[in-house]
């Protein structure tokens, strides 16, 4: 039988952003409302993005914290 697959609306990427599917607006930490015009957005989790609340890939150049 064909299986059902996981397809979460929100995904926390390891050492990466939070992917959000199907959102139409996002409120950032300053209270500003941003409209969303793409099917999936990546929200910054490292707080170092140059265009918050969106991820701009900057997390990749930040040294990672030890996890073990």
């Amino acid at each position, binding site marked *: 039988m064909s299986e059902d697959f996981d397809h979460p609306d929100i995904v926390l990427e390891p050492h*990466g952003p939070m992917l959000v599917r199907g959102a139409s607006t996002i409120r950032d930490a300053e209270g500003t409302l941003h409209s969303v015009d*793409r099917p999936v957005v990546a929200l910054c989790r490292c707080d170092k993005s140059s265009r918050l609340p*969106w991820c*701009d*890939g900057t997390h990749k150049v930040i040294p990672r914290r030890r996890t073990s």
Partner: protein
Amino acid sequence: MPKPRGPLSEWVVARLADSGAHPVGAAPLAHVTDDEAIALWSLHELSYRGFEDASDDAERDPEVLVVRHGLERALEQRLRARWDHAGTDVPEPAGVPDALEALVAADDGPSLADHVRRRADTDQVLEMLRQRSVYQLKEADPTTWVVPRLPTRAKAALMELQFDEYGGGNPNRLHAHLFAKGLESVGLRSEYGAYVDDALPETLELNNALSMFGMQRRLRGAAMGHLAAFEMTSSIPARKIAQGLGRLGLEGAMVGYYDEHVEADAVHEQLAARDICGTLAEDEPDQVGEILFGAFTCLDLESRVATALFDAWGVER
């Protein structure tokens, strides 16, 4: 059609323009890789938008297909020899996203984006945009060929990514269209294929590899690995290029194009590495090596284009 660069591309251009009956004869050998590259580029183009001055049924002309097959085989052998030479370890399927990340992190090729951000002059930036336009005016199209060849999860994820590339259904947001508007904003021509005659052999090889990966089912893993590496090396460079354009006073639609890619590709790289390549590797474990071969090839060809431009400009890398 493009200007021929040697006997082989002369044969191709004449053959494609000819709609009548003709005797079967062997195509001449190319003397230089430039000739081979423009010949294969022209043959691939028949499967995209074609040429006004080419016969409309040339795409499936058996003699033309024989030449295309021979050129693709030579290109693939060359790309695989470079990959073999790199000697990268091939992981278990579950390790594919991390292996892609490691491959990208280890890439030490010269960076056009760094140069554009800090030092490039306007002529150099315009030259880079002309070279990029060969692909960017059909951005995402070579990858779309792969959709029907993928298992369920990778197929859905690729469509999620491609839908964004195509503007979510809004033609004004289609990435190739944004690039065309960007070209016009910096005073360059925006019609499809405008700068093919200026394309360096390295630019043509990059485009030919992308089309070949996209159009052959056997090479689907390489196509998806290429996509992942491309997306994983896009958002930070896009930001640098946008900064460089601003530094040179080239404000407007081209900055908008690169700004769009900062945000879009931060999403796409996650989708490409995990939801596309990660699930493809799980569902078809024999594709693991192919995915990494495609990713390596993306980085290698981008590096060759950058090297060729730096050499032409006399810039130290």
